């Protein structure tokens, strides 16, 4: 959690640790598209669970001229006339979000090739310091629009791709981590979001141990037999908390299964090395009285 416990104030290029992780904020006055500085990829450490904090200094997000910094709602923000680059202060989850009328949103897509977009986003984040060895998959998610006349939906029109990088350590998915970006035709990042926390070696070791256990047929059978519903098609992974404001960091090795709930909807269930079911802290059911007078 070193990457989330030590952060620079906005506009200060200072602290060594956070600089290593790409976490320092930029100066208050930024060029129209945030300037990308020298690659941090050469600073990769040997820790298998090293994290990555995306920073405005390494961002191509088009934020506009004349920015200002502020801290509110648990986030450090760089606010420009075209959008906001916000970082959750406690976790390092960085998100660059355009204003609804930002020109970057309406410039047009970078490409109609999902592969080209995926490669662009991959190179962009690796150049910004994302540990290349931890990249799992890169998938292009399409955005389309349509309308209808007399009930007939018109031919959908392609708007853009967003590429989503997932994380895996030693082939084990770290499913809650993500690096997401959409580029437009001008080469600007329209929107991006990155949460890639440092993970303790102990959790990675737990996940490896669980994977080894399940690779042994007899141990696998015993493990599955110990599950309440004998889920056989689960997957070993590393889970961690969402990184949202107010969420305590938590991480664990898990055997995750997808279950179709009676009556519809899927849900995900987690089991530990001993086949005991558990929930992440941010999945615990909240208690709050209803509000409003029922009439």
């Amino acid at each position: 959690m070193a990457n989330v416990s030590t952060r620079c104030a906005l506009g200060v290029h200072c602290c060594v640790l956070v600089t290593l992780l790409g976490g320092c904020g930029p100066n208050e006055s930024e060029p129209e598209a945030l300037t990308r500085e020298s690659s941090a990829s050469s600073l990769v450490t040997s820790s298998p669970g090293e994290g990555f904090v995306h920073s405005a200094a390494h961002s191509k997000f088009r934020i506009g001229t004349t920015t200002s910094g502020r801290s509110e709602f648990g986030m450090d923000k760089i606010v420009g006339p075209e959008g906001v680059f916000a970082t959750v202060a406690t976790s390092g989850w960085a998100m660059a979000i355009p204003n609804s009328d930002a020109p970057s949103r309406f410039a047009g897509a970078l490409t109609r090739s999902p592969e080209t977009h995926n490669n662009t986003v991959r190179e962009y984040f690796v150049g910004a310091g994302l540990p290349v060895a931890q990249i799992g998959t890169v998938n292009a998610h399409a955005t389309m629009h349509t309308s209808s006349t007399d009930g007939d939906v018109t031919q959908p029109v392609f708007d853009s791709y967003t590429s989503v990088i997932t994380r895996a350590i030693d082939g084990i998915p770290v499913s809650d981590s993500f690096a997401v970006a959409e580029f437009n035709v001008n080469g600007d990042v329209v929107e991006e979001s990155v949460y890639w926390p440092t993970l303790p070696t102990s959790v990675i070791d737990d996940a490896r141990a669980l994977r080894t256990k399940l690779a042994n047929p007899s141990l696998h059978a015993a493990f599955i037999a110990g599950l309440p519903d004998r889920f056989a098609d689960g997957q070993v992974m590393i889970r961690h908390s969402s990184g949202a404001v107010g969420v305590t960091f938590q991480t664990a090795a898990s055997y995750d299964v997808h279950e179709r709930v009676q009556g519809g909807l899927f849900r995900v269930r987690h089991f530990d090395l001993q086949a005991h079911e558990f929930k992440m802290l941010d999945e615990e059911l909240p208690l709050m009285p209803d509000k409003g007078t029922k009439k």
Partner: protein
Amino acid sequence: MTIDRSSLRVALVVRSALPRMDLGNFGTGKSKMSKRQATPACCPRNAAALLCGLSIIGICRPSRALNGITAEGVSNYSYLRTQPVNPVQAGDIDCLNQVKKFYDTMTAAGTGWVGNKYYTDSSVLDTDFRDPDVAGSNVHDNDTNNFDDAAPDIAFACGHGTCDDALVTNCASSANCSAGDYCMANPPSGGSSRCATGSVPRKFWISSASSSLLNLVTYGDGHTKLGETSAWGGAGANGGDMVAIIANSCGVRPPFFFSETAAMYAGVTQIDMIMPVSNTAVAGSADAVVYPNRGLKLAQYAVANPNSAISGGWFNNVDTAPQTTGSSCPDVTNNYTFGGGHGIGGCGAHISMAYDSSAGFVIWDVDTMSWMSARSTANRANGLSNNYARYHCNYDCATYPFTK
């Protein structure tokens, strides 16, 4: 500043950002005109006293700032399972996390949004979503005091739905399906595609002994009217929803999403839903996933940049949900070669939809309306002549279209 409505026609050709009035001073703090506001809004938060004075003497038109959050979620379906007549096998799900974290984060001190109605489990009634002013309504129908009361502008509901629109008829093309039905297309699959129909109403299940409608809301049947700014389709003029977000099973299905929701629009500016797409012989229908942090991440987006597009937040919600929160597209496995997951099991999308009185408005409603501009009643939809939808898939739905 005055907007010439005719200029909005430009948006027919170029999807462009229309100016609007934002209230408050988040983000850039710039004052922008509403899509249809003829005079500046009066007395917004932090506005100069002069503007308020102008309002009092009638020079500038007051625009009511609606900034409430309403949330209704059902996690406990035990009553539905055990009711004496026609029990429904509906497992418990985690909707409380979704609605509560949305509600809490949106209404945190300083955000400018205030909490309105918050109902959970057995306090969520089917009649909460039903307009008593529609002819033929149930005597207990009462959205007027619940999901669509006059105050809230953003309302979030979460509960079970039913994927009974996913048929078991295998198909190679829509010619293999009944008239009006479609063959769902997928990325390459291990199983045949299956048909889907738009003729079965979409549903939202509640679970309460106080139900008046068998715990079922069929929201496209003309009795769910959101926004209710005028008496469209027999609705009352007593609603408040600017945006409705509904997370349930098979909430809408392509290509039927307009016809399945058309009757819900009565002033609401945007409806956001989860849209499963794939239906295969191997895996059955895609479906929404119970994703506890859905509401939290959506609200996090909103407070990070309140001047961002609401639809943008709904779409980003797909990308930042864990890929493994939901199985793969289309075969519902752990192989995500073609995508999938991210809050949806199989292939699917988050969709934002609108009906309004012009092509320019309806595009603005979906593409450009921000969290802040959703506070102004001047931005309400005021007609049904045009519709528009934008959706963001958990796979490459540009390469692999919805139907074949």
